[in-house]
């Protein structure tokens, strides 16, 4: 597992049914592109988050395939509709096989 990888998400705590809400996510990760060289001239192997998935109560919101051109500490902002109270599940997949997850509840009134 890459070092110091920590997911962060921002989801409003409450919303009304059918309301459009904005979600922001950021995960600390170097996103080593595989195109840089170290001091000895050797290529530093690629090591990135390659996929990011957001579901709400088992239904998909977005599913992103990331390439090395995504910046260090990948950031995503997007919009979701929530039909009822429930839980957002966020999952990041690392090249090295690690999976990072975060969950956030929202109450729909």
């Amino acid at each position, binding site marked *: 597992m890459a070092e*110091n990888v*920590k997911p*962060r998400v*921002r989801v409003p705590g409450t919303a009304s049914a059918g309301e459009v809400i904005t979600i*922001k996510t*950021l995960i*600390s990760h*170097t996103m080593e592109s595989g195109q840089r060289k170290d001091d000895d001239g050797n290529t530093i192997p690629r090591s990135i988050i390659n996929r990011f998935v957001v579901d709400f109560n088992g239904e998909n919101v977005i599913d992103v395939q990331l390439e090395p051109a995504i*910046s*260090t*500490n990948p*950031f995503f902002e997007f919009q979701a509709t929530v039909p009822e109270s429930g839980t957002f599940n966020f999952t990041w997949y690392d090249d090295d096989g690690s999976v990072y997850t975060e969950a956030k509840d929202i109450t729909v009134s």
Partner: protein
Amino acid sequence: MKKLAVAAVLSVSVAAPSVADETANLVLNGETQITVRADAPAHVDGLSEIISGWVFRSDETQALQMDDFDNPGMIFVDEARDTWNEASGEAGESCASCHGEPESMAGVRPVYPKWNEEAGEVRTLAMQINDCRETRMEAEPWGYTSGAMANMEALISSVSRGMTINVAIDGPVAATYAAGEELYYTRTGQLELSCASCHEQNYGNYIRADHLSQGHINGFPVYRLKNAKLNTVHARFKGCVRDTRAETFSPGSPEFVALELYVASRGNGLSVEGPSVRN
């Protein structure tokens, strides 16, 4: 020539949205007012107004600092919060053992570097952190510009954001202040450039596509887009001096401590911004 100038202005509309808005104001998270412009302190002869480096950045870079979620520097503040609570060293103490919550550090950043009476020396925040580690925690000191140090400085700065920089320049620090001032105006290296050459005489001008700021350090540690990590004051000093094709001073050296005290005091009146975001 006049005709040319007019023609150039006509092309303004093309580039306007991307260029720093020099009238912009900074409010963090919609609540913390940051002073980005102030009258220059009386001891600074070369400037009439002091302006935060944030003002010189593009709209997009400015936006990255306006909300803690968008600010990648806050990742490192989070890391430091974990470190804050971890016992380290022979004494089995953590920062929290003595200081409680990191928020208790509010008001520390604005007055550093400052005189330490007991030690009889000027201390930067990094020196104070390492003194705590060595003396109280009996732990290994951190490298002066190391990631762990940058993170802890970011945490301690972050709880003082919005507070006014107020670094003392007289009394026991007078000699250090004078040494820092002299270095600020000394042209170093084969390019014979002083800090003042760029940041006092030419702030607001572009050097290639780089918009020169006044070089204040109220935003340190700084998350730079260039290297996607936190950068400490002395690492930045070293980089700048290196770019004059000079032999640099070392981070933590008396010269850089003096320069830090002097440069910090030039920003007296601006707000603490660290961790800020710059290019």
